């Protein structure tokens, strides 16, 4: 590079003191960010991408220490600089956007005030004009009606709006470097696109440099100039976007690229690049070609399902207020009907709040519908209340895999106890040996090493926890499995393996799947048919390829277009 970089990190090593001794989080990390350049740092969890950013900005905390190397910002040494100097630099020259915007904002202060705080701290405004400047910033980040939103508290704003406020705060003092740490995690795809477009536009017009930390290769491809790939605290590859995707040199990069599902990839492609996977993963079974649409009878029929929730803020709670039956309830699921054949996989796709999770909760009979029927294997299961259904023999026929593998495992149960629970409750097994043998068999089936069974959830990795959750769900040989975003909390390479596992299990056990997800690319890999939902209604139904490649409805089209992906051919 001919010009001097704005930020350069040279052979940086960072260590953390922990209970087990020192852990090296970063090892010889070197990277540079040129003026006006957008650098992507890509890697899976634990790769050290966030630690890099925190070291640069001096937010490492007590336990971490830069043992070697240096970070330089515009000729100024950042490592070893006094806290006071760093404080002046933060916000003024380098600012940062965090992963969870709602948690990063002060919950008891109006958002406008929080922007003012930044401006006043760095003497970018006086008491007289600070309000105008803050309003101007809110307008810049395209918040509708900034005057009104100025006085809002973070909990009154949606996740996307909170992230816009964070961006406004970060850019308020015209810094020259913005570090964005997974800025769109937890946001819907369309919101993600809007947020990223906003960051791109605003930083481009100010000639700012951006460091974008993400686990999503597709997003890095769409918004970065250059990408640094990190693995286990080391930089394994650094190249321009085009070079990286067309000619990846490091095997890890190749594996990551292969594992990211694109609009045309097949399930078998995801793990085409072998690697030392977590634990003792089973040998990837050859994925059979997709079986033609099963001609079986209907396993599940959902007829005119409606679910309404009472609104807390509705008028009519007091006797002197006028009641408005229309406004007193919120209709989460609005006349939804569909059917599922035996052995078929159906994708339920939509953004948060579209009613897909409510629908799946009703189908799994955790929730009672307001109206409508669910016919499962020829029987109307909604004629029993959710509480009564728990004790019926049909209970074991419908099982579920949860979104967050961590949250869905009881922290006080070992993996073995978690899997034993349905065996005891639903199959009435009681012999310790019988249960033990069954658990071992299930562990083998989902590729979980047997010696991990005695561990507690927090001692397992995300992929291993997902396997425990799947083993628990298939323990009782269900006919139908509802998968509620089973891979959204996992790294891409782990996601690839789990998706293949799910596909194999389906073939082996002849189950039907309802796959709930926001990611059409992932749904496409596993499902023959897809239902797109929005605001409680079904927008579009069709085969997965049809919906993804040739959407009929405008809403589906925006959804498909918002998914960041890379197509090497188009770069």
């Amino acid at each position, binding site marked *: 590079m001919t010009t001097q970089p704005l930020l350069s990190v040279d052979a940086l090593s960072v260590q953390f003191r922990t209970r087990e001794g020192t852990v090296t989080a970063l090892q010889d990390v070197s990277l540079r960010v040129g003026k006006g350049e957008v650098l992507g740092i890509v890697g899976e969890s634990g790769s050290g991408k966030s630690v890099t950013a925190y070291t640069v900005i001096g937010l490492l905390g007590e336990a971490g220490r830069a043992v070697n190397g240096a970070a330089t910002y515009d000729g100024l040494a950042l490592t070893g600089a006094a806290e006071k100097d760093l404080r002046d630099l933060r916000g003024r020259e380098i600012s940062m956007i965090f992963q969870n915007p709602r948690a990063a904002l002060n919950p008891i202060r109006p958002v406008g005030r929080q922007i003012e705080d930044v401006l006043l701290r760095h003497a970018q405004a006086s008491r007289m004009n600070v309000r105008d400047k803050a309003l101007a910033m809110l307008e810049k980040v395209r918040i509708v009606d900034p005057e009104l939103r100025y006085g809002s508290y973070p909990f009154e704003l949606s996740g996307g709006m909170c992230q816009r406020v964070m961006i406004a705060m970060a850019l308020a003092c015209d810094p020259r470097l913005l570090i964005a740490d997974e800025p769109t995690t937890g946001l819907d795809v369309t919101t993600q696109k809007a947020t990223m477009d906003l960051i791109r536009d605003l930083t481009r017009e100010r000639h700012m440099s951006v460091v974008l930390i993400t686990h999503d290769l597709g997003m890095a491809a769409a918004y970065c100039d250059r990408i640094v790939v990190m693995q286990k605290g080391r930089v394994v590859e650094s190249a321009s976007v085009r070079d990286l995707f067309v000619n990846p040199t490091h095997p890890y990069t190749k594996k990551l690229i292969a594992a990211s599902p694109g609009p045309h990839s097949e399930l078998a492609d995801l793990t085409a690049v072998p690697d030392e996977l977590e634990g003792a993963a089973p040998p990837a079974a050859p994925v059979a070609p997709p079986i033609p649409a099963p001609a079986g009878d209907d396993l599940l029929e959902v007829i005119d399902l409606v679910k309404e929730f009472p609104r807390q803020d509705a008028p009519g709670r007091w006797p002197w207020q006028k009641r408005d039956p229309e406004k007193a309830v919120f209709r989460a699921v609005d006349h939804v009907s569909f059917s599922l054949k035996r052995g078929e996989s159906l994708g339920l796709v939509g953004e948060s709040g579209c009613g897909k999770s409510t629908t799946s909760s009703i189908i799994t009979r955790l929730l009672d519908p307001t109206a409508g029927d669910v016919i499962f294997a020829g029987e109307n299961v909604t004629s029993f209340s959710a509480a009564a259904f728990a004790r019926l023999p049909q209970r074991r026929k419908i099982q579920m895999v949860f979104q967050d593998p961590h949250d*869905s495992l009881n922290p006080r149960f070992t993996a073995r106890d*978690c899997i034993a629970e349905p065996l005891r409750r639903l199959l009435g097994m009681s012999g310790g040996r019988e249960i033990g043998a069954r658990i071992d068999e299930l562990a083998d089936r989902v590729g979980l090493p047997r010696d991990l069974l005695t561990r507690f959830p927090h001692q397992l990795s995300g992929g291993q926890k997902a396997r425990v959750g799947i083993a628990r769900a298939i323990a009782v040989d269900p006919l139908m499995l509802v998968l509620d975003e089973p891979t959204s909390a996992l790294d891409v390479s782990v996601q690839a393996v789990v998706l293949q596992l799910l596909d194999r299990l389906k073939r082996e056990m002849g189950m039907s799947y309802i796959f709930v997800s926001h990611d059409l690319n992932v749904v496409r890999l596993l499902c023959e048919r897809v239902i797109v939902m929005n605001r409680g209604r079904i927008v579009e139904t069709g085969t997965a390829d049809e919906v993804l490649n040739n959407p009929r409805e405008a809403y589906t089209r925006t959804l498909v277009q918002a998914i960041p992906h890379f197509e090497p051919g188009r770069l």
Partner: protein
Amino acid sequence: MARFLRHFRHVMAENPVTAVAFALLGLIVFLALFGPWIAPYDPLATEATKTLRPPTWAHPFGTDHLGRDVFSRVIVATRLDLGIAISAVALSFAAGSALGCSAGFWGGWTDRIIGRLSDTIMAFPLFVLAMGIVSALGNSIENIVYATAIINLPFYARVARAETSVRRNAGYVAAARLCGASDTRILSTQVFPNILPPMMVQVSLNMGWAILNAAGLSFIGLGVRPPDAEWGIMVAEGATYIVSGEWWLALFPGAALMLAVFCFNLLGDGLRDLVDPLRRT
């Protein structure tokens, strides 16, 4: 078990204060169990020739107005004070977590009734309430236990309610439902074990209060009656002699009381770490 011991050792090594608190607890429990055999003198034996003697090697804590050995009385009183505190805390822990868990888990009317009930209890000055209960039920040691249990109950109910309502919608609760578990089963096997760590902190703090409360009731003449050895009574009896210079009568039982309360207050964090599986690695 070996796993637990290893974890125990780690928790102790991590925080010296916890180790001190546990050592103190060990001493207190030891005295409570074996006090009568350790005490050098009979705590009730009076000796008219040796009244109000200051501390000497023969009587390290001196003797009281009836010539009884204060050292022996302080040691023997441990069992009674600890016994009252443990049974009171056990009662309020059991009842409080049952009520609090149901309030947090089911919400609605259950929550409202239990919530208002505990508010009502807390609206009274607690010590006065305990006095009232003891004088209404009758002046006995059991009634001191009941009174202490009742005034501490709302604290457990509140902690249990808050912790349960956070976990009510956790993924593992839904997973247990899918396994066909009933509400009570989910509460007892899934939710309750998970609220133990914060409850343990409450238990430990409460032990201190319970001891103070029992001693306080005895101090004003309720519950334990002379000549039984009990720290509260001993302080009350000794208080009259402080003015005339016989300080050892009130000081040593008071110090024992203070050490016990101090020990339980320090114990909280250590107990929480012990019962929390997340702290195990």
